[in-house]
């Protein structure tokens, strides 16, 4: 019976992509090791090399099993080269490592196009493969080859496009185009195409004139000077166009698309075996407890009452343990997100000519997988920002008395129910004058307004705000910090910035540990129960009715210890009957979100409990001021209040008007959602 291999494809793709990520990390480690030794040539660590080789080898094996010929062919070339490095036949220089990194990209895009079934642009991949193939012949036999590698920037292989159109009288000058073409051919891989369009008819053709033109593609480690030299004799007698063909990037868009579609698919989760073991243990205990309880129930007498109670206590403990171990399965170390930055920083610092060291602290801190997946983009953006705007060029740094190599530090730690991630650089810091000037120019603030440094720093989170002097493809397109903030807010977190001129910038990202369970306080309003997230509660006080005021006909305010905040009557906000209209009968819960406070008038506080978050939008839609729903112990549904949404409502002064339903900007509502 033929086996349908397609059922294994998914596993293969996942394993391969994971293997590639490993290769990438290891290659970067290899390079870093070399940099620390201060050598151009890296002394290869056999352990690292083996890891890289194994990854390439299993991709090759897997793809040949499943018949992805493109992937096999490429992986084979890569494997051969890695083998050569392992045997010491090929020295892993910086250039070789860059090429290997590029190969990782190629393999990744090949695998992704195999997965999506879409044919990608293969010319760039072929290009890399050619370079890989030419590596060996060039490297060991002729360490000082005729074309010095150092002549081209970073020793890169260049792809020249030359349009050579000799003038008619070329032959009269004693030059022969054939000689030029031969010479070019000696330099590297050369493809020549003759252009015969200006060739006249036989009757009008003069044998001493040159009618032909050539289009030449030249590939190899060749500098512009070398090419110019070839043409130096004929430069006066021809029109010459020498262009560097831009190295095709490996369609990063399609990779991003594929990754996005990966997220959309119900992704799988890799779980360490100890975690599963712990889960099975807990389930075992739960079964024992259940057996014990049903035994007590089947021959129940009041003598057994104490045993029943102890059984229920045990059940409670088992349930909590079960919950913890199930949750821990969803938890992944942040290094998953951090490692993605290694490559970005490596590539970018080379491109920008900056020297940067990326340092991680606490990357083993665990956080929900959903959070990790959606955290990668904002983190990449923050790192990119630090590199592009923060870290100065080496010369500038030396002039400022700082070490030549900049430092970007990612630090993660747990604090209460939150995970805090700091992205800190030791660059030039935010330029408050420039931000302010830009904000005035954009009409965001008036030039006469006086803002504190903190307020100015906050401006960078506004949409369309970028002070980059030139728009690069790296950052500074104005789609920046506002997107970062929105992404993080949509995870129920927050992001803040602190900066010191000349000393650096620090972004602090705060995220909830998990999106699935929330510590809440259940409150009663009329007949209804609502859940307030515990993190947003500051305190609760008994209401002093004389402190409620309504200045100048605006919405109500409450004065608490000389601090004034909006006074929100939940019953009016939600159009429900309150238990009593007497203010002193109720309680005031002071909540805080995004740095703003508000007082919520509720009838009663019922108690603190953990609730499972159920998304309302799954079968309905988002509701303003409600972040999600949950199911209470008695099986009824309770709404989880969205504190930032409520506060926005209050600060907008619409506490008494009917709020327009459903037009809450989805991006700014802090709605933790489950996938």
């Amino acid at each position, binding site marked *: 019976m033929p086996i349908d291999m397609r059922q294994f494809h998914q596993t293969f793709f996942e394993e391969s992509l994971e293997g590639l990520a490993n290769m990438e990390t290891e290659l970067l480690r290899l390079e870093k090791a070399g940099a620390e030794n201060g050598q151009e040539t890296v002394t290869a660590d056999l352990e690292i090399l083996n890891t890289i080789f194994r990854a390439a080898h299993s991709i090759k094996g897997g793809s040949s099993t499943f018949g992805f010929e493109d992937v096999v062919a490429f992986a084979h070339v890569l494997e051969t080269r890695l083998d050569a490095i392992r045997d010491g036949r090929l020295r892993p220089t910086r250039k070789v490592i860059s090429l290997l990194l590029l190969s990782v990209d190629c393999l990744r895009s090949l695998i992704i196009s195999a997965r999506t079934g879409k044919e990608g642009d293969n010319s760039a991949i072929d290009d890399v493969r050619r370079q890989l193939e030419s590596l060996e012949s060039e490297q060991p036999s002729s360490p000082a080859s005729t074309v010095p590698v150092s002549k081209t920037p970073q020793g890169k292989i260049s792809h020249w496009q030359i349009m050579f159109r000799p003038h008619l009288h070329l032959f009269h000058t004693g030059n022969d185009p054939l000689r030029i073409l031969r010479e070019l051919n000696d330099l590297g891989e050369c493809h020549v195409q003759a252009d015969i369009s200006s060739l006249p008819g036989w009757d009008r053709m003069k044998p001493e004139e040159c009618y032909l033109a050539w289009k030449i593609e030249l590939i190899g480690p060749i500098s512009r000077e070398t090419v110019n030299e070839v043409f130096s004799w004929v430069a006066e007698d021809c029109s010459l166009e020498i262009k560097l063909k831009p190295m095709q990037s490996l369609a990063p868009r399609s990779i991003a698309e594929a990754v996005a579609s990966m997220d959309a698919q119900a992704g799988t989760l890799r779980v360490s075996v100890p975690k599963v073991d712990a889960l099975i243990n807990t389930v075992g205990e739960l079964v024992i407890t259940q057996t014990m309880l049903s035994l007590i129930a089947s021959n129940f007498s009041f003598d057994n009452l104490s045993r029943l109670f102890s059984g229920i206590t045990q059940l409670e403990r088992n349930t909590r343990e079960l919950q913890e171990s199930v949750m821990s399965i969803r938890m992944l170390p942040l290094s998953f997100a951090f490692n993605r930055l290694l490559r970005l920083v490596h590539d970018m610092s080379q491109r920008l000519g900056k020297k940067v060291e990326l340092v991680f602290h606490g990357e083993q801190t665990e956080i929900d997988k959903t959070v990790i997946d959606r955290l990668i983009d904002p983190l990449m953006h923050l790192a990119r920002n630090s590199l592009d705007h923060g870290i100065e060029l080496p010369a500038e740094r030396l002039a400022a008395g700082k070490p030549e190599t900049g430092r970007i530090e990612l630090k993660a730690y747990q604090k209460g129910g939150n995970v805090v991630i700091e992205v800190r650089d030791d660059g030039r810091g935010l330029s408050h004058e420039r931000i302010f000037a830009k904000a005035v120019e954009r009409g965001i603030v008036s030039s006469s307004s006086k803002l504190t440094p903190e307020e100015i720093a906050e401006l960078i989170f506004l949409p369309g705000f970028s002070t980059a002097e030139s728009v690069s493809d790296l950052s500074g397109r104005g789609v920046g910090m506002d997107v970062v903030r929105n992404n993080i807010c949509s995870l129920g977190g927050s992001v803040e910035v602190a900066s010191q001129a000349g000393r650096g910038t620090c972004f602090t990202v705060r995220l909830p540990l998990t999106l699935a369970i929330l510590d809440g306080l259940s409150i009663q309003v009329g007949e*209804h129960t609502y859940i307030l997230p515990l993190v947003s509660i500051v305190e609760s006080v008994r209401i002093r009715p004389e402190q409620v005021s309504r200045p100048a006909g605006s919405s109500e305010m409450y004065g608490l210890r000389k601090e004034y905040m909006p006074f929100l009557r939940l019953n009016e*906000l*939600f*159009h*429900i009957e309150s238990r009593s209209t007497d203010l002193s009968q109720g309680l005031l819960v002071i909540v805080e979100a995004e740095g703003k406070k508000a007082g919520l008038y509720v009838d009663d506080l019922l108690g603190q409990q953990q609730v499972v978050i*159920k*998304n*309302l939008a*799954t*079968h*309905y*839609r988002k*509701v*303003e*001021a*409600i972040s999600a*729903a949950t*199911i209470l112990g008695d*099986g*009824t*549904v*309770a*709404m989880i209040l969205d504190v930032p949404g409520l506060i926005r409502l209050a600060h907008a002064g619409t506490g008494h008007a*009917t*709020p*327009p*339903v*459903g037009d809450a900007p989805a991006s700014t509502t802090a709605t933790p959602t489950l996938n």
Partner: protein
Amino acid sequence: MESVHALDLKGPQTHEKQFLTFRLDGQDYGISILKIQEIKGWDKITPIPNSPAYVKGVLNLRGVIVPVIDLRLRFGLKEAVRDIFTVIIVANVGGRLAGIVVDAVSDVINVAADQVCEAPEYEGQQNREFIKELAQVDGKLLVLLDLDRLVNPDSLDKTTAATSVAVNG
């Protein structure tokens, strides 16, 4: 369930479709049975703040939060007193669940293609968009509803503004 299966076998040959029929303010309505997940009795429903009046709230359906729509209010009819016949029809439209409160369910019937006709259009007609077709069954008029439109969250949005004004006005 037995009889449903028997009818099902007959279905494809005669180009008949099956509808669940229910009663609302004296009128019979039908919904394609393929869209029905289950029928359940009245349960505790938690209201959603600031939502249109006909969205009664949400229901805990074995751990899934399902919005419940009162079809009487949706059609602008008077709200009925709940009795033992009041049921919630849980429909599954493209993966989204929604509960529909109706006065009582009646039957599952087969409707042949030649029994169905287009709903006529006339002036001052309300809720025309929810009516898919009309059918004559045993001399009685059966209104076949377009469930997709009825429970679509977007169409819930559209009518929201008007309703909330009405509620507060």
